[in-house]
């Protein structure tokens, strides 16, 4: 039970798939170390929670690409991302950056740049999703609820047809396509 995933790549694939057991294992193995480090470096335990969760989301986002291979362990990666996130946060707050204790080994130099790239890709993605959410809020009902049910809550077209009172999944599907057309108009007109 302690370790259902023996190979890191398996663990990563399970994380990318959103499996709870994998997430729990990663949490157990890494959260204490990272939060301990952060508290030693001027962060609160709330900072540690936020930071660690964001770091896992960065990894989750990276792992969505099935071609993605880690060049270090998951632990090292999360630790490095957490440090970089914390460093950026301190910079944003215009505080004197705390010297980064390098207790994970070689995460600086050229690999440090890679972590920065991963973080900015992550932030761009977050912004993109926020814009999409904003567009979704504007399309009106029943479209908003139908698209949320399908994309956010992972409901099947059968379930949606039943929940929204369509006589069959095909009718619900046609409605979904209409909604997507509306979403597309709003989303891309705002982008331009």
């Amino acid at each position, binding site marked *: 039970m302690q370790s259902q995933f023996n190979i890191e790549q398996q663990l990563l694939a399970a994380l990318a798939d959103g499996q*709870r057991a994998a997430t729990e294992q990663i949490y157990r193995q890494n959260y204490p170390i990272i939060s301990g480090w952060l508290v030693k470096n001027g962060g609160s335990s709330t900072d540690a929670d936020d930071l660690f969760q964001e770091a896992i989301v960065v990894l989750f986002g990276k792992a969505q690409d099935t071609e993605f291979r880690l060049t270090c362990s998951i632990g090292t990666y999360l630790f490095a991302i957490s440090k970089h996130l914390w460093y950026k946060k301190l910079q944003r707050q215009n505080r004197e950056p705390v010297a980064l204790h390098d207790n994970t080994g070689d995460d600086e130099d050229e690999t440090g740049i890679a972590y920065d790239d991963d973080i900015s890709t992550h932030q761009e993605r977050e912004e993109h999703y926020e814009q999409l959410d904003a567009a979704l809020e504007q399309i009106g009902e029943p479209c908003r609820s139908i698209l949320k049910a399908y*994309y956010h809550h992972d409901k099947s077209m059968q379930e949606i047809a039943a929940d929204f009172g369509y006589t069959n999944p095909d009718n619900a599907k046609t409605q979904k396509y209409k909604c997507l057309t509306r979403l*597309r108009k709003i989303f891309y007109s705002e982008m331009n």
Partner: protein
Amino acid sequence: MSISNNYIWELAEAYLAGSIPISELEKLQQRLITDAAFANEFNEATNLIRSATGSGKQKRFKAMLRDVHQEQVAKVANKKAKHIIFTPEFWRTAAVAAGVAILTSTITFWSLKPSLNKNESRYNRISREVTGLKIAQAKQLEKQKQLELDLDSKTKKNTAPTSDVKKTGTGFALTNNGYFVTAYHVIHDENGYGDSVYIQNHEGQYYKASLVTFDADADVAIMKIDKAGFRFGKGELPYTFNQAKASLGTHIFTLGYPADEISYDEGYISSRNGYDGNNMQYTLELPVGHGQSGSPMVDAKGNVLGLLTAVGAEAEDKTYAISAKAITSLLHKLPDEKNIKLPKHAKIGYLTREQQIDKMEAYTFSVKVYKK
């Protein structure tokens, strides 16, 4: 718009799912090169679907992550509290000396009530007696429900019986084809069995059920819906059964019917054994009401660990659950055991709590006992 709505989205969905045959794919690629307007539309459609899918997946992941975080934090806090304050030996001595140990919200805060009358029952079954005014109310509700049902569809003939509801509890499915489990005391008490037992599902429909087998000591009854070809839900059961003894502190939740509305509650295993040291039971820190007898006790991964049976009478602060082992051993005694195959996997293991509840609703229902 030049191209029909459905077409471009169907094409984009098929493309992203990788379900376009190679010959078609070549034609598509050709068109993307030669027809710029089409290419623009196609790209926007695929990008939008990709983003919506990715965003949704990330949202579910984040929700699950928050849940994992809370669970892990709670586990750590729980462990610390126990290690510092109590040893099991101390516990037992304290409990014996006082006769009764009353638990409040956590193990670290407990008090003793020396004034307790030992002869008083400390153990109340949590089925719901329906008497007097309640019967009137229930009848009224039933009438309403029936009216709604009649309006709803004439093809549904799943009507409630005309006699009075005497008692209600909760049940949950063992197999999708109609076997379910509830607490034995829901269907049988000192006055014997009711005239008939019906379940009422989350959509308000009634189905008649018959007793298959029971274990009065363990307080488990296995029943089956009479209707041929009956199914609780669309697919296999979303949860599985775990008969191994679960750890102290395991977080659990339950769905049940304290009233006509389904209710969700959560808590944790506060003691490995149940009432009076009964090792076929757990003691839970879980707020429940009457009518929740027979409700499933489920862990975060979708394993059914037990079945709610009773609460401590004093302030109803303790809840007792029968271990899932009592259910499985009862199933093993059945001659036609082969017909009851419990689900092997919990489909809801990695879902958020909201989704888990959503998937479980169809398999959890009110059990109503009628008597003239």
